[in-house]
C-alpha cells in the first residue's frame, strides 16, 4: 500500500487516539482516514462512546442499589464524572469501580452521605463474592482444644470477611433493590451500626453485629487470642460472663464459616 502519509511512531498514534477517547482531544482526527460514508471524527466517536458505555455498564452492575436510589439520569451523571476522574488502570473491568465510594464522599455528593455508605457496602459485597476461598475449621476442631489451651488460641478468618460501620439504612436499601422492591428513603440511625460481610460456600452474606462482637472480630483480625478477647470483653459484660460470651461468638463464627484456622501458641 506504499508509503505512509503519517510516519509518527506507534506510541504517538496511540496517545493521540487515547486522548480523543478520554477527553475528545481533536488532534487524533488528522491521523484517521475517512471512508466514503464515515468521516474520521465519527469513526473516533465510535470508540469514545463505546468507552463510556462499557465503563458505565460496569458501574451499573457493581452499584445496582446506588443506581436504583438516585435514578438512571443522576447515575449516568455520576458515572460520567467518575469516568473522567478515574480512568481504568487495571487489566480487569472488575476493579474499575473501586474508587467510587471515595468519589462519593467528596464534592456535591458529600451532601448525601448515605451514597458513600451504600457504595462502600455494595463494593464490599463484590469483594466478598470473588475473594479467595479457604478450608473452614469444623466445630469439632474447637471441641478438641483442651480448656487450658483456650486462652492462647488464635484464629485466621476467611479471606472474604469484611467489616463496615453503617449509620444509614443502606443494607435495607440494597435488600429492597435486590428483591426488585422500591428502596426505602435514606434514614440515619442514632449511632453507627457494625456490619459483617462474608461469603460462605458460594453465597455472600451480611449481618449486623453487637458492638462487643464487632470489637472482638476486629481484634481477631489483628491477631488477638481468645484470652485477649476475654480481657477486652470486660468492658461490656461482667467478669464471670466474659468467657461464655467469647466462646459464644467463636462458635457462631465457626458455624458461619468465618474461621479457617485455629492456632495454638
Amino acid at each position: 500500500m506504499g508509503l505512509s502519509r503519517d510516519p509518527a511512531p506507534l506510541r504517538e498514534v496511540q496517545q493521540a487516539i487515547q486522548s480523543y477517547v478520554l477527553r475528545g482531544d481533536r488532534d487524533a482526527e488528522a491521523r484517521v482516514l475517512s471512508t466514503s460514508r464515515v468521516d474520521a471524527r465519527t469513526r473516533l466517536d465510535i470508540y469514545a462512546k463505546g468507552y463510556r458505555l462499557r465503563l458505565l455498564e460496569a458501574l451499573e452492575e457493581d452499584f445496582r442499589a446506588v443506581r436504583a436510589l438516585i435514578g438512571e439520569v443522576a447515575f449516568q451523571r455520576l458515572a460520567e464524572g467518575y469516568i473522567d476522574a478515574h480512568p481504568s488502570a487495571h487489566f480487569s473491568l472488575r476493579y474499575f469501580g473501586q474508587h467510587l465510594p471515595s468519589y462519593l464522599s467528596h464534592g456535591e455528593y458529600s451532601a448525601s452521605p448515605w451514597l458513600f455508605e451504600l457504595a462502600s457496602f455494595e463494593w464490599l459485597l463484590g469483594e466478598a463474592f470473588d475473594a479467595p476461598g479457604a478450608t473452614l475449621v469444623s466445630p469439632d476442631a474447637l471441641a478438641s482444644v483442651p480448656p487450658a489451651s483456650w486462652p492462647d488460641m488464635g484464629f485466621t478468618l476467611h479471606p472474604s470477611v469484611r467489616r463496615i460501620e453503617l449509620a444509614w439504612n443502606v443494607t435495607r436499601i440494597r435488600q429492597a433493590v435486590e428483591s426488585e422492591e422500591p428502596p426505602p428513603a435514606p434514614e440515619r440511625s442514632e449511632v453507627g451500626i457494625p456490619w459483617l460481610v462474608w461469603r460462605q460456600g458460594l453465597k455472600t452474606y451480611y449481618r449486623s453485629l453487637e458492638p462487643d462482637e464487632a470489637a472482638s472480630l476486629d481484634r481477631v483480625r489483628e491477631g488477638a487470642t481468645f484470652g485477649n478477647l476475654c480481657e477486652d470483653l470486660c468492658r461490656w459484660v461482667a467478669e464471670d460472663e466474659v468467657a461464655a460470651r467469647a466462646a459464644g461468638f467463636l462458635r457462631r463464627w465457626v458455624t458461619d464459616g468465618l474461621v479457617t484456622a485455629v492456632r495454638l501458641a
Partner: protein
Amino acid sequence: MTETSALLTPHLGFGLGLRKEHYDAVLADRPEVGWFEVITENYLVGGGKPLDYLDRIRAHYPMAMHGVSLSIGGTDPLDSGYLKALKALAARVEPIWISDHLCWTGVGAVNLHDLMPLPYTEEAVRHVAGRVRAVQEFLGRRILLENVSSYLSYHASQMSEWEFLVAVAEEADCLILLDINNIYVSAENHELDPRTYLAAVPVERVQQFHLAGHRDLGDYRIDTHDEPICDPVWDLYRDAVRRFGTVTTMIERDDHIPPLAELLTELGQAERIAAEETASGALDRSGNRAWA
C-alpha cells in the same frame, strides 16, 4: 484426509463461549459441545462462584482461554502482573490454547477496555512480533492472535490488515484465531473485500475460528456479539471452511444471551456448513483444494 500442519492442535469440534448465565444449564444438561472458550479476565479473581464453576465445568469439557487485556500492540511495557496471573490460571485450567487480540488496549497505564486497532506499519510488525515472542517464551507455549473488528484506520498504515496479521504471525511464529465476523465487519467498515482477506491468511497458522453476530448501523457495523450470526457472515464462513478445512470453531455471544439451546442450534448450523463443505471432496487441511 485431514492433515494437520505441524503447528496446529487437531480439530476439537464446535464450541461455545462459557457465560455465567449458562453455568447451571451446562452442569445440569452437559450439552454436546466440543469445548468451551472462557474469557480469561473473568477468572483472574481470588475465588468464589467464577472459579468454582470454572473448575466444575472444566472437569467435563476442554477449554480455551481467551484474553482481552494482553495489549500485545501496546507501547507500555508488558504487564508482568497480568502475565503472571494468566500463567497461574493456565496452570489451573490446562487450556487447549491461550488467545488474545491483535490490538492495543491503552497507553500510560490506562486501560480503555477495548480492542483498539493498530496502524499497519513495519514498525508495528516488529514491535508486536517482539512482544508476542516474549509472551510465548514466558508462557512456554505458542499463543493465538485474533483479528479484531475495527471502526477506524490510520493514515500511518503502510500495508493491509491481512498483510499485517500475516507478517506478525510469521515473524512471531504464533498462531491465528480468525474471527470470520470480524473480517466481515472490518471489511464493510473499511470498504475492503473480505474474500481477499481470507485468501491471504496462511492455512497452516489458523488454529481457531470465531463466529458472532454484529449490528448494522447503516453507515458502519459494530461487533456487538448480541444477536445471531447474519447470512453474509455464514457465507463467508462457508468460504473459510473451503479454504481452511475443518477448523475448531466457536460462537461468541456476550449480550442478550439466549437460552443455551438457542446457541446450540446456531452452533449446529456451523457444524452443518463445515460438514457440507468438507464432505464434497478430499479437502485437505492445507487448503490445496480451496476456491474449487
